[in-house]
């Protein structure tokens, strides 16, 4: 209901504003449309929150948020609505690459700057793509474990949905990171990004393996589920837990509470998107692709905001 209200509010706002509105300081106010594919995932909620927080710092930006509720055609309609409403820039985090390529290209051809966040579209009819590299993050997690575990260490890998690209990349990157170190993945299972499933799979791993040195989960809820299973079996002290995403209220909180040993940030790029929008609206050139860096959070550095990865 909240969401419908927002959409309604957005529609009213869009209908009511022409392009030459100015703020109390007399500057021109730019309207920026944000098309989010799905607010069901905490990470995407965080992305919108990051964008909102960054935009609030600039009195000449007005944001219009749209949530496609995981529906590709709805997202397409949202982009078209933003174009016809004549917004000054569009930020879009697409649900799917192929079906949203054309709507994005049309907006771009209508001379509206389009920033594509997280998932790319095809071709190059967009202004700028901002995203992180899951393979790189998986590899960093592998290398981090490699430095902490001896050779012949036994690792459990709890994978995200393996039909999804992030799951595949976090798997491949990790395997590249531990390659040649002698670290052995003794149990791997697809927990579909879900914490209850991660707990179930971890219980099976505990039943099968008499020694586990580390758990690598493709997201923080997965690592948390594994911790709960190990704690219930009173074996949580024999292993270290590593997750990915590092959302403030999830992964970073778990690290600070001593549940996870490390979490690797998958940045939302929200702040960078607003920064890029401002540059474009200010007439500056921006690169076609911006690859976001990641940070690692451990008990030692979580309070200082983590440590950036090379």
């Amino acid at each position, binding site marked *: *209901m*909240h969401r419908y209200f927002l959409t309604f509010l957005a529609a009213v706002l869009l209908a009511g504003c022409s392009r030459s509105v100015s703020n109390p300081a007399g500057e021109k106010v730019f309207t920026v449309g944000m098309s989010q594919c799905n*607010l*069901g995932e*905490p990470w995407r*909620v965080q992305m919108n929150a990051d964008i909102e*927080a960054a935009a609030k710092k600039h009195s000449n930006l007005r944001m219009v948020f749209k949530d496609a509720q995981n529906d590709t055609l709805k997202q397409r309609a949202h982009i078209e609505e933003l174009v016809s409403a004549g917004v000054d820039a569009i930020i879009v985090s697409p649900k799917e690459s192929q079906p949203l390529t054309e709507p994005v290209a049309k907006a771009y051809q209508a001379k509206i700057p389009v920033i594509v966040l997280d998932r790319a579209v095809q071709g190059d009819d967009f202004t700028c793509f901002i995203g992180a590299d899951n393979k790189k993050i998986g590899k960093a997690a592998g290398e981090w474990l490699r430095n902490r575990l001896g050779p012949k260490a036994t690792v459990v890998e709890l994978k995200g949905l*393996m039909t999804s690209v992030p799951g595949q990349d976090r798997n491949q990157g990790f395997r590249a990171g531990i390659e040649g170190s002698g670290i052995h993945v003794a*149990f*791997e*299972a*697809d927990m*579909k990004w879900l*914490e*209850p499933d991660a*707990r*179930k*799979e971890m*219980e*099976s791993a*505990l*039943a*099968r393996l008499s020694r586990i040195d580390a758990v690598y989960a493709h997201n923080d809820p997965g690592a*948390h*589920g594994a911790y*709960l299973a190990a704690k*219930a*079996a009173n074996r949580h002290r024999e292993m270290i837990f590593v997750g990915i995403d590092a959302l*403030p*209220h*999830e992964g970073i*909180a778990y690290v*600070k*509470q001593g549940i996870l040993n490390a979490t690797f940030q998958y940045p939302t790029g929200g702040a960078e998107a607003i920064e890029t929008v401002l540059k474009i609206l200010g007439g500056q050139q921006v690169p076609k692709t911006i690859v976001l860096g990641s940070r690692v959070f451990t008990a030692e550095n979580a309070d200082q905001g983590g440590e950036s990865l090379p």
Partner: protein
Amino acid sequence: MLRAAVALLIVILLGMAFHADGAFYKVGTHRDALRQASVYGILACGMTLVIVTGGIDLAVGSIVGFTAVCFSMMTIWWSWPWWISVPSALAIGAACGAVSGALVVWPRLQPFIATLAMMVFARGMAKTVSGGVKVSTALPTGDGTFRYVQVPELFRTIDSRILFGNLSMVTVVFLAIAAAAGVLLARHIWGRDLYAIGGNEEAARLSGLAVRRSKLLAYVACGLCAAVAGICQAAQEQQGDPEAGGGYELTAIAIVVIGGTNLMGGRGHMGLTLLGTITIGYLEKILSINAVPEAGRLMLTGVILVAAVLTQRRRRF
């Protein structure tokens, strides 16, 4: 009853054949198989009552999410004692069930439609009250930082084990609910009325049974079970996830059907649901300890579902 036991036997034999280096023979494996089946089982108990009347309740998964969020807010955020938070969470679940039931008996909506509406509505409520994020022990302070609190003692109690660590508390909760629902269904007038309604609603009405009241109560009981499942889910996850319980309604229905309760209503037994729950629980566990890839699991589950239903089919259908 015997026929349902055949399905369970097949699954257990499967486990003995693929015991994953002896992991199947460990006590912990059986305890964990029952633990992870318990939430499904609790839902299936309520579902059995509704299915016996010839109805269906698609909303249980969403009610799990909604009550898990509410229960977590009450215990983690507001530190309410258990004797307020548990009844409140149960009341929320019962209320959701009452709305579904009321839609079924008064405007005479199809149970499928009425509970489908409740399914999306309750999910929306879960997302609204939680603000779309998980209710966890990291409390937002409003300025972007978080304050950390302890996991409530109540959560630890529900997620604990008894009998020297050999039986999970949630399994005890499930067995208690199955026993209570079983007695109500088999011995109580209300339970007998449910069979009569499921067998022939018109005949039941003409015989002077309070059809509307009994049906409404079946949905209330189903909502109540979903709330219990939501409490157990929250305690096991140590948080209230607004997405919790997604798709659980289908597992619950599958359990009821594997047990042998007729989807058309009028026939069924809580003991069958108990066997169905254990069958599904063991099946999941065996696939998991053998680290069967996801694609294979889905196909195997489908095959075994059909096989289980076929083994307990009556000669004349």
